[in-house]
């Protein structure tokens, strides 16, 4: 037993369920986005970017493993079973992450908005009184900031590039912004865990995030759309998740008993 295990607070059942729900949401965001980003492998416009996106996808998948590990410590679940044997309706990712990869602008704007959110959420989660979360957040943040540095430069370059790149980047932001706001919606079960200092308050993260991305993107001439509410959320997915999972889960479902890959 490690020192951290000894100092772990005793969790009420409700708080435990809130942590499980949040770890699942985080893991599903990372897993689904990782799959979308990996779709560029072998297809990116530049070799360096092909490599960069493969790295980013691999990091996000590593983070999904961290979150599923934290969940397993609470409920004994199996990461592979959760990744490969749940159906679309059981996934808790934000629909932002499941949208098709689109063009380069869509890919970069989505990744930028997600990375900025993740960096700020992780930064807040470092203060969690739930030690395993604070430790995982510290680890993931160090990796995630490389993504943000990369995608922040790309959205600037695209927004300030040619008339075509500016148009495509603006279109991407207009399409993605309503979906991106889904990142800041609190989970229905987490209020007590937030009050107890176990989970970050997403309202605070949302404020910092909006200030960061609005300042940055408006600074390079992009404008944010006026909002129309979406019919999608972490429980109601778009039509794009089912085909994504068909691809992602295919081998595991075809050979459920396999032990050696």
């Amino acid at each position, binding site marked *: 037993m490690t020192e951290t295990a000894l100092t772990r607070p005793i969790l009420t059942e409700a708080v435990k369920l809130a942590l499980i729900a949040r770890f699942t949401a985080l893991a599903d965001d990372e897993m689904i986005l990782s799959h979308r980003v990996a779709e560029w492998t072998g297809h990116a416009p530049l070799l360096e970017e092909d490599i960069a996106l493969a790295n980013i996808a691999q990091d996000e998948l590593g983070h999904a493993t961290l979150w599923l590990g934290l969940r397993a410590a609470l409920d004994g679940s199996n990461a592979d079973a959760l990744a490969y044997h749940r159906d679309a309706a059981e996934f808790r990712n934000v629909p932002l992450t499941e949208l098709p990869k689109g063009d380069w602008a869509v890919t970069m704007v989505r990744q930028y908005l997600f990375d900025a959110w993740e960096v700020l959420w992780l930064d807040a989660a470092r203060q969690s009184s739930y030690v395993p979360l604070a430790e995982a957040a510290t680890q993931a943040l160090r990796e995630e900031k490389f993504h*943000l540095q990369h995608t922040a430069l790309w959205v600037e370059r695209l927004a300030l590039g040619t008339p075509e790149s500016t148009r495509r980047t603006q279109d991407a932001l207009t399409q993605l912004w309503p979906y991106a706001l889904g990142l800041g919606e609190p989970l229905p079960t987490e209020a007590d865990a937030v009050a107890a200092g176990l989970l970050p308050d997403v309202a605070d993260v949302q404020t910092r995030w909006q200030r960061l991305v609005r300042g940055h993107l408006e600074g390079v001439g992009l404008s944010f759309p006026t909002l129309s509410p979406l019919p999608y959320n972490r429980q109601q997915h778009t039509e794009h998740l089912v085909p994504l999972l068909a691809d992602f889960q295919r081998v595991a479902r075809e050979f459920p008993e396999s032990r050696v890959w």
Partner: protein
Amino acid sequence: MTALSVQNYWDALRGVADPEIPVVNIVEMGMVRSIDIVEHSDVGEHGVRVRFTPTFSGCPALHVIRQGITEALAAAGADAVTVENVFSPPWTTDDITPEARAKLETYGIAPPAPNGESTLFMTLEPEAVRCPRCGSFDTRMTASFGSALCKRMYVCQACREPFEGMKSV
């Protein structure tokens, strides 16, 4: 069997190479936090417990390294080995020993700059990266990601050599 010391196992782990950068071993990379001998326990008559700190959470080499630890310690006399992950304090490139830094440089990989904690998440941190071939600081990053999660790409403007450098985390 004669009593085997902890030192014996540290020496054994110095034989486990980093699979991505085989010129350095996992001890000098700072990945092994502690080794304990556990006699007559549930892990075996002469069990060894290793506390291991992962580098990058998505690094595929971690599985290979854990397997390497188990094999090396078994070969050194352990009846049973447990490898425990430790995330706190997190691994940082500051844990890499001066000897390992010298080996990286000889191998052609610029060692990481000292890690500074910054909350300016979007800003590229200025790092003076020295060309491992000619020693010039007149270098330029050509790609912020490289062949492994821990590396990025540079070119030396003095000798024109492209090279890899370790990210500073």
